């Protein structure tokens, strides 16, 4: 990863939460479809376990975090590793803006869940462009998310399994 302007996108691994899967899909949509070659990711677990190479990456590159639950593991762990997220996103905020979209399940997002991921990915792609144009892209997150009661996030609905 030689390009210092390459933006790291780190989703939470949220295996037990459908919104974790949405965040992960949004990250891959940016990396593979929307901004290939300009973005990359790092394993969150590796970062959290103290891997020096992973920690160096989040300190050297502008980083965007995506979280699927109020515990905000991605943001918290990037900060604990010495990084300062330049963009902080939560899947729940996408749901708040598009309440018609409901995720089917953790392993199968369904059409609405994929749409939710796509919307989030498009917003993150714009943030990537902004970070690459900004001279000092290591500054703290310019996107300030509204504080939401954690319980509210937990109760976000999923579609019924068919």
């Amino acid at each position, binding site marked *: 990863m030689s390009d210092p302007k390459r933006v790291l996108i*780190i*989703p*939470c*691994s*949220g*295996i*037990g*939460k459908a919104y*974790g899967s949405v965040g*992960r*899909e949004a*990250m*891959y949509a940016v990396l*593979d479809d929307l901004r290939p070659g300009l973005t990359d*990711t*790092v*394993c*969150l*677990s*590796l970062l*959290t*376990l103290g*891997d020096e190479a992973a920690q160096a990456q989040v300190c050297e590159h502008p980083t965007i975090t995506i979280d699927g639950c109020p*515990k905000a*593991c*991605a943001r*918290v*762990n990037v900060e*604990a590793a010495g990084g300062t997220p330049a963009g902080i996103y939560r899947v729940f905020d996408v749901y708040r803006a598009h309440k018609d979209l409901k995720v089917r*399940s*953790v*392993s199968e997002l369904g059409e609405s869940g994929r749409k939710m991921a796509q919307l989030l990915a498009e917003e993150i792609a714009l943030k990537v462009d902004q970070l690459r144009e900004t001279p000092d892209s290591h500054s703290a997150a310019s996107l300030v998310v509204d504080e939401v009661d954690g319980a509210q996030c937990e109760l976000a609905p999923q579609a019924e399994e068919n």
Partner: protein
Amino acid sequence: MPVLPKRKVGLISCSGEELPAGTLSRVAALKVLERLRPNETVTLCLPLFLAGDDKERAFARFYPTIAIDGCDKRCAARATEKYSAMPTASLVIPEFLGARGLEAPHNRRQLDAAASVRQRRWRKKSHSAWTKSSGSNANQVSIKLFLPKRKR
């Protein structure tokens, strides 16, 4: 005779976002949780576990766990051992695939078509025979887990 609480097994997948094998570890854990053993397993979120969540760590300390790792850095197994207790079983995807002559996935976003076909066949086969009462599957594909070496 007292009714004892059901002893669930915790699945700790590395989820490794960077690697196709990380995606495979995640998909495998979810298949077990949602389809193969829905009432006998739970998943533990590894970053949450690492970040110091008491519930996740306590579970892994007192309940049997299976760590599923996508690479030889073995984040899931190492973290479980460091913060709770040695995982009851540990599985590393490249070793698992290599031992069975299976090709590693190439796509980290989703499993490739060949893997999906294998998965559907395997699911059909395992669904046809597994029963809760016996807890076993006559046609079950043998999965030998890589048990961690005990410290002396």
